[in-house]
């Protein structure tokens, strides 16, 4: 009896049809436990008034109608302005700098590539500590002392709405430029040299080569950077938290995710928090579907 059991287990080890399922098991467990189940409970809880985790009350769409308030609309607005600014910056700078870095007339290319990549290695918190100092509100802050020496007045960056967005964007731009530039650079290095040469023989200059050969050739990676920037924009939390770790009256740093954090963990309103999460899920899904469509995945069926 026991022996046949051992043989059965042994035959599983040799079985080519069963083995892949065992290989994939960790993911399947993790998928249902840490992805599928949370998404379901999130949607479920968004229709509930959560008193404790075991004591909930059905309230229908009340949490969603409560979302129609000034703070949430401002959070969506803030996340959207931030995202749009990041998209514009990330569509212009990484590809331009990569293009320049790729030109053979530049010396020390590897050094510059590494130097621009270094900010990617920092965490948002560590980088934020440095930028909090650089953009300190007081007159002796680094940027403020430059403004004053140019004859201006000190700017309380953290207190105004637009300068608040500016310092978050600067922080995120500084951290993300390097990795996006490297994406562009590695895509550019796969473009065959003959393409450039034949264009040069036709008398094209560097700028038109960049516009008509380089950019179209790396279009997939640009779409990838675009999608990633939009999603990272809407899921942004830490860039705001590191500047304003306490809530501010002007709502500076109060992004969509910060609003979830505030309602769910600080005000203990899990129902409302879940409803915001579901809205965020729909925003992210929409962006992903648009991206998949522009990659032509639905037409070709496979990537």
């Amino acid at each position, binding site marked *: 009896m026991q022996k046949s059991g051992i043989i059965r287990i042994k035959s599983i080890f040799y079985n080519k049809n069963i083995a892949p399922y065992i290989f994939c098991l960790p993911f399947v467990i993790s998928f249902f436990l840490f992805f599928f189940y949370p998404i379901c409970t999130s949607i479920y809880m968004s229709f509930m008034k959560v008193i404790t985790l075991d004591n909930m009350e059905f309230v229908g769409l009340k949490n969603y109608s409560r979302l129609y308030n000034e703070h949430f609309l401002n959070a969506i607005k803030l996340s959207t302005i931030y995202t749009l600014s990041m998209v514009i910056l990330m569509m212009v700078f990484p590809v331009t700098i990569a293009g320049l870095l790729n030109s053979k007339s530049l010396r020390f290319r590897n050094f510059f590539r590494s130097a621009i990549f270094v900010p990617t290695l920092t965490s*948002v918190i560590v980088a934020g500590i440095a930028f909090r100092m650089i953009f300190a509100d007081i007159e002796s802050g680094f940027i403020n002392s430059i403004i004053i020496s140019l004859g201006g007045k000190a700017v309380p960056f953290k207190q105004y709405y637009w300068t608040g967005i500016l310092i978050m964007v600067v922080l995120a731009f500084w951290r993300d430029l390097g990795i996006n530039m490297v994406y562009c650079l590695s895509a550019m290095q796969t473009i065959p040299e003959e393409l450039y040469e034949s264009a040069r023989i036709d008398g094209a200059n560097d700028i038109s080569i960049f516009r008509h050969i380089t950019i179209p050739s790396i279009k997939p990676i640009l779409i990838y950077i675009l999608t990633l920037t939009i999603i990272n924009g809407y899921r942004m939390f830490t860039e705001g938290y590191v500047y304003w770790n306490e809530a501010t009256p002007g709502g500076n740093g109060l992004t969509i995710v910060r609003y*979830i954090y505030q309602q769910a963990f600080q005000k203990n309103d899990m129902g409302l928090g879940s409803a915001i999460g579901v809205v965020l899920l729909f925003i992210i899904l929409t962006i992903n579907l648009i991206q998949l469509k522009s990659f032509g995945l639905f037409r070709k069926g496979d990537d």
Partner: protein
Amino acid sequence: MKTRNRIVSGVLLVVFIIIAVIALFPIYYLFMASLQKGETMFSGGMKLFFDPAIMSFKNYAAIVTYRDGLYLSWYKNSLITTVMYTCFGLFFTSLVGYGLGAYDFKLRNVIFVMVLIVMMIPLEVLMLPLYNLIVRLRIIDTYWGVVTPFMVAPVAIFFFRQYVSGISKDFLEAARIDGCTEFGIFFRIMVPIMKPAFGAMTILLSMQQWNSFLWPLIVLRTNRNFTINVGLSSLLNMYSSNYEILFSGAICAIVPILVIFVFNQQFFISGLTAGGIKG
């Protein structure tokens, strides 16, 4: 023509020197600040160049003594969670990636689509129900609570799958005929072949965990259990003066990574960008 080229490359060089200075400046500034006394930092103004006479490494000594080694336990927590996340992550994701890349089985495409879906949905959407789950599993405020939900990282599965798909598997048949089990094939033959992929994913996963913030912030409740980023952010308080340890602590959080980066630049860059390369 030649002088024109010279001018162009000269201008280009200057432009890149400026970009590099801007890229490295905040870290330099942080380091300079870490050598100042907290009061001089603000009263004396934050200038580009600090007075060398008042520089000292005292703040780095303060790290050790700060509240009975609180910072050191943050550092330790970050190290342990990073090692846990990376080791378990590599083990599980390489198994799954190999399973998806090497076998032709019925549910393969279904599971692969599931991987892609998880890859698309960021943690922020799920953090609230995940928090409740972690509470129910009684791993709140623990290393396991920080590490477990994201250990089977879809990005790494995707990467391992791509890597395995690109390898010819004809010789595996020979191993099967020699009586090797499917798991023996993976551990004895494939793992050594997948070494470069393991290298890239070690960098990606460990950096992800070392720099993570939002999830540890939610899971960790006790000050002693914080990771570095959560601990440093708890020092960001207008009303207390923790500046000495704040700046030197921030520098200590990045210096190990910078040192490793300087010696393995190419490896590091390809590791961190590996997650983004689309198949």
